[in-house]
């Protein structure tokens, strides 16, 4: 029989087909896994959400401001240019070097003149390399002004060593290379512009005093100095532009320095289009109105915060580890990430709050405060002197047109929701109309009560700012206001809440913090160092110490929540935090590295020495809440509502198909209840979510918001502090007309320049545009909400953090005001937008789990305050936030009930989404993050939102595939965590429902509703078309395997010719 002859071919074919069958089925399972399904759907352009167009009657709640995509794109680009224009800060301008005279010959030196900033994360210039509008370099921006002539003998190729990423806390080689080229012809009247810069980036932290070609990675390198000196010797005037978010050490080039230049300007880290605006300022087409967002120092090492950046580990860190048997969940992996810590011993005195306060005290009371003590002085063994420390103060920004600013009136309403409003008179002393930057500062009383209760006060605090245009020779009044609560100080010892001291509050308007503090000193009759403005301030007296006005907020008691953030809680009197009562308390060094300040390291802490070591260890192991099922000390109550309780009129064939339909119907039926997360309807909604999904949705938050059986739509996620990271098609391809598709990447903002603009109104404009991005994306590409982690609001605690380019400033109130305006505006477009990385992401070194020990006053008045304006319900009302990887004290921020539940959900009435940064299994422990109302454990992807086999699996043995100890049996035994999970889901669903994805509201009185078509989410595609490829491959290979296999068996068993 012929079959016999082909036996091996048949067997081989059966093997091949079986192998292909295995390939097909296993590849399909991988393709459908959490990690890959999002990417697969992306490749095949599948949107699993099913939408139905319904005709509704009402009013669109969120509307676009632009009629067409090109109009919108042009507005977005123009706004970014404005960020450059308003953010550029002129720090020094001798010999009228700037603005560049019309027709001036300009020679550009350095890579940064010809290239976009490089080595940063989040703010990634160079995104828009082509398509709708290409990015603009400084050289291109200057050329585009048509005001100056660029010396074309000096070109980009002449410079080597492009701006590069910062190191991972190691020695750094500043990349800029310089050598003179034979081809260069530099006219003697040419103006030399030298751009120097520094990279940054995720995972990067500069190490103080550790550079191979400079005294510090943020100091000018030999090559940079050589380049500047070359320009000084060959050009008529020299302008140095600083392209950096990390405050550089510019001592050698300022007036009086060894390499003095004529002008210095701050450019921050521009994104794709900001250089266009900066160029306009340089040539005088726009006024110089930006201000410096960080204090620039001669030596950053002596900044008290820098002394305590870096790393240290507990002497007995091994005691944090548990064996698998000891771990309450018996986990095989137990990486608690608890070994590293720093002590933020500088307290509230970050940046100018240290330098200006110590200066104030050195003038006002040098002996009583020891402000002139040698400790902390960059000049060894010399008395501390402001002029030896600070190169450029916070807020400084020169104007081309002379002007004066003066506070003429202040009203201070000291009540829970009261406002403080200052009227600032701005006088244009020049000969042309110009725009000016006004900055409002306050000097608060520092009293005996403060000293007794260890309350610290900066001698000067920035409050808010505004820009104003004034005609030549004229004056204009502008009102600058802010909630009075931001003038209060945290008293963790006495009143255990915010207090307002009795005494004089001096309000002043100034160009920078130093001018402001001098104004106050002059008011007090003191002799200053001469750097004052008008010397005027308005005094408001508070007769009595106020301990009650800010003791409540949004119906919540405001009291201590972070006693244990202070290392002294665990090890009494271990650390002395710096106090202005005695400057000899300048911080000791609690790290393992001696920087240029020469302060020796203190011994590392020992957990064993603490009387509260068990409590400490429990927190370091991220076990804030141990599941009742696993905790013999806290068995709790069994879950009362496992499967969810759905109202009678909800279900297939009923009035409402899903709970989502039911809740969104309240947008018209009861708008007030719909917008109140605490209303009965939202509680009913939460109770309809079963516990399998309530917990699963949090643990598998991934990079989408999942669809639950309540029938909500998903929200895709987008991540960039500079805006939505999506690419939008602005002009579609048209083959007939020969038009290629033109696109625009939307993450085009520059946080550094937005901050340096000192203009909340500009931030409001950006917020509106950022929100409008979401509306266009929904209409053009996604049809459904997109959550963006689209703002960066951390503090620049030190100059060395690699992510400073994602954040704005060393000042919490500048960040607070910019953030509040950005988010308030963005919310008007129905976007889901959250800033990041909240909670002391002060350095990238050991960022996962780094414990930052501090006082509660510092916690509340520095980094957390940066976010308060953006997230408070009555201010920015932002609806999302990504938390940092850090710990506040020993508490991982995403597990920290005091921060997330008491302060954010309670005091601020924040009802949005809280996400972890990239989830780390034992660090973001599920029980503990749910306990703190964290809504999602972030990851690369997620296709499910359940534990066990599916969202309806309520069998005791159902367990989570990532966290095997999260079982249905464990959940059923724990009513507390189930209800917390429901609450947390409610926040997430509430945010989705109130976003633009359901864009309908009731007509208000006097407003006419209309019939219009609304896309309504109705369900989810379970089987995408691309999955059919795998189905077909599986069926085909299975059949062929079968046929070949049977044929092979036949060939084996059927008799051959010889056998017959």
């Amino acid at each position, binding site marked *: 029989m012929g079959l016999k002859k082909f036996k091996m071919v048949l067997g081989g074919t059966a*093997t091949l087909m079986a192998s292909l069958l295995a390939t097909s089925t296993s590849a399909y399972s991988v393709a459908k896994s959490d990690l890959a399904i999002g990417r697969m759907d992306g490749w095949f352009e599948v949107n699993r959400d099913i939408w139905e167009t319904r005709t509704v009657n009402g009013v669109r709640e969120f509307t676009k401001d632009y009629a067409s995509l090109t109009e919108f794109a042009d507005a977005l680009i123009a706004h970014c240019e404005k960020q450059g224009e308003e953010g550029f800060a002129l720090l020094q301008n001798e010999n009228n070097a700037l603005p560049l005279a019309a027709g001036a010959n300009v020679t550009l030196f350095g890579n940064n003149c010809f290239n976009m900033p490089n080595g940063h994360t989040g703010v990634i210039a160079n995104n828009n390399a082509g398509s709708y509008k290409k990015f603009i370099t400084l050289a291109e921006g200057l050329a585009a002004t048509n005001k100056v002539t660029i010396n074309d003998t000096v070109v980009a190729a002449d410079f080597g060593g492009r701006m590069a990423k910062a190191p991972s806390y190691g020695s750094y080689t500043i990349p800029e290379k310089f050598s003179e080229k034979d081809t260069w012809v530099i006219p003697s009247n040419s103006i030399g512009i030298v751009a120097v810069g520094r990279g940054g980036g995720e995972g990067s932290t500069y190490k103080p005093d550790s550079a191979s070609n400079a005294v510090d990675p943020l100091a000018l390198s030999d090559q940079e100095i050589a380049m500047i000196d070359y320009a000084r010797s060959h050009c008529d005037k020299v302008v140095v532009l600083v392209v950096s978010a990390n405050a550089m050490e510019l001592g050698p080039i300022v007036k009086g320095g060894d390499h003095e230049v004529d002008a210095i300007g701050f450019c921050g880290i521009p994104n794709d289009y900001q250089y266009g605006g900066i160029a306009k300022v340089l040539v005088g087409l726009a006024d110089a109105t930006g201000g410096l967002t960080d204090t620039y120092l001669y030596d950053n090492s002596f900044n008290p915060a820098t002394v305590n950046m870096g790393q240290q580990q507990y002497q007995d860190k091994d005691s944090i580890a548990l064996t698998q048997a000891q771990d309450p969940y018996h986990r095989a992996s137990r990486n608690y990430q608890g070994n590293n810590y720093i002590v933020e011993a500088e307290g509230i005195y970050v940046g100018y709050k240290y330098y200006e306060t110590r200066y104030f005290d050195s003038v006002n009371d040098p002996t009583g405060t020891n402000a002139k003590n040698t400790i902390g002085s960059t000049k060894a063994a010399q008395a501390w002197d402001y002029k030896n420390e600070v190169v450029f103060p916070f807020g400084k920004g020169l104007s081309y047109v002379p002007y004066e600013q003066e506070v003429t009136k202040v009203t201070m309403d000291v009540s829970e929701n009261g406002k403080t409003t200052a009227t600032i008179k701005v006088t244009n002393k020049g000969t042309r109309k110009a725009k000016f930057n006004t900055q409002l500062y306050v000097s608060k009383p520092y009293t005996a009560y403060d000293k007794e209760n260890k309350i610290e006060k900066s001698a000067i605090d920035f409050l808010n700012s505004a820009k104003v245009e004034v005609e030549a020779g004229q004056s204009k009044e502008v009102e600058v206001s802010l909630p009075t609560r931001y003038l209060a100080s945290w008293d963790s010892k006495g009143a255990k809440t915010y207090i307002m001291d009795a005494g004089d509050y001096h309000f002043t308007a100034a160009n920078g913090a130093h001018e402001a503090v001098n104004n106050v000193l002059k008011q007090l009759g003191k002799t200053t160092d001469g750097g004052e403005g008008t010397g005027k301030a308005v005094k408001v007296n508070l007769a009595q110490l106020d301990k009650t006005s800010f003791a409540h907020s949004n119906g919540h008691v405001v009291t201590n929540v972070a006693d244990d953030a202070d290392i002294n809680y665990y090890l009494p009197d271990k650390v002395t935090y710096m106090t202005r009562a005695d400057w000899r308390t300048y911080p000791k060094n609690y790290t393992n590295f001696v920087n240029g300040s020469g302060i020796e390291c203190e011994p590392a802490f020992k957990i064993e020495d603490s009387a509260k070591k068990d409590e400490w260890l429990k927190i370091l192991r991220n076990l804030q809440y141990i599941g009742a099922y696993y905790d013999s000390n806290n068995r709790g109550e069994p879950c009362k509502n496992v499967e969810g309780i759905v109202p009678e009129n909800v279900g297939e064939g009923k009035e409402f198909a899903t709970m989502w339909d039911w809740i969104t119907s309240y947008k018209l039926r009861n708008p007030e209840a719909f917008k109140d997360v605490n209303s009965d309807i939202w509680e009913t909604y939460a109770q309809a979510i079963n516990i399998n999904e309530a917990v699963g949705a949090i643990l598998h938050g991934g990079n989408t918001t999942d669809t639950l059986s309540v029938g909500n739509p998903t929200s895709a996620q987008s991540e960039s502090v500079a805006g939505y990271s999506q690419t939008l098609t602005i002009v579609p391809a048209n083959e007939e007309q020969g038009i290629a598709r033109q696109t625009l990447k939307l993450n085009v903002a520059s946080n550094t320049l937005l901050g340096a603009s000192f203009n909340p109104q500009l931030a409001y404009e950006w917020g509106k545009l950022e929100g409008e991005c979401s509306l266009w994306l929904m209409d053009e590409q996604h049809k459904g909400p997109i959550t963006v982690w689209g703002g960066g609001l951390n503090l620049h605690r030190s100059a060395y953090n690699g992510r400073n380019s994602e954040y704005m400033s060393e000042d919490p109130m500048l960040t607070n005001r910019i953030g509040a305006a950005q988010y308030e505006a963005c919310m008007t477009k129905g976007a889901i937008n959250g800033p990041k990385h909240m909670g002391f992401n002060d350095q990238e070194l050991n960022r996962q789990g780094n414990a930052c020990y501090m006082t509660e006053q510092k916690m509340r008045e520095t980094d957390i305050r940066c976010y308060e304006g953006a997230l408070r319900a009555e201010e920015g009302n932002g609806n999302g936030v990504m938390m940092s990887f850090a710990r506040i004290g020993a508490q991982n921020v995403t597990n920290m009930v005091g921060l997330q539940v008491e302060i954010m959900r309670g005091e601020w009435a924040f009802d949005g989404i809280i996400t972890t940064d990239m989830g780390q299994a034992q660090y973001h422990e599920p029980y503990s993050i749910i306990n703190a109302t964290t809504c999602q454990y972030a990851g690369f992807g997620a296709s499910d939102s359940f534990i066990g086999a599916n969202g309806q699996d309520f069998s005791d043995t159902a367990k989570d595939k990532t966290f095997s100890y999260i079982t249905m049996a464990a959940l059923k035994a724990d009513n507390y965590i189930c209800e917390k999970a429901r609450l947390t889901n409610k926040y997430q669903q509430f945010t989705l429902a109130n976003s633009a994805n359901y864009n309908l509201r009731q007509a208000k009185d006097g407003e006419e509703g209309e019939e219009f078509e609304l896309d309504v989410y109705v369900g989810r595609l379970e089987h995408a078309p691309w999955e059919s490829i795998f189905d077909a491959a599986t069926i085909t290979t299975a059949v062929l395997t079968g046929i070949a296999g049977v044929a092979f068996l036949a060939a084996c068993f059927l008799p051959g010719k010889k056998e017959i």
Partner: protein
Amino acid sequence: MMNFLKKQALGAYITLGAIVTTIVGLILYGVTVNWGDQMQTANGGELYLIASDPIFGTITTLGVFSVIFLVLGLCIPQFKLQGIVGKVLEVVGFVFRLLAPVFLILTFVGFINGTLTGLGWTFFSNEELAINPGAVWTGHVNIAGLVFVLLSAIIAIVASFFKVVKDDEAPAVEEKPAE
């Protein structure tokens, strides 16, 4: 010994090659899991892998069975028995030769799935992280391991098209006409 070698057909040598590449692949897999366990891909990056993840136990099992199947697929055909027992043995031997590449494919896919996060962060992170040199080394070993396991599967498939043992040179049998 010479007779034994003379008896071996091409399929035996190819299968032997598959056994060698599989063992090399599994050693590289072991190194990857050992080195990558709890290793941070970068300061602030994800862990390369967590060895206690059940997927690695599954991969190990699949890999070991692949070798066993290859060895059995090589050994069983050495026993040339007559009659139905011989035929059954032939089929059993072949089933092992069929299962070997199937298990190798599953090992390969599991290996990719288990190390995708580590490989992704190490070689494809768009976050400009400073990647830990140890992660890069682990990544290279990981990729080499994947290549070997895939190669083993392909070789094993090819081997299945060839006999392991040459047919006996049977004495001439007088053909009888069919009755």
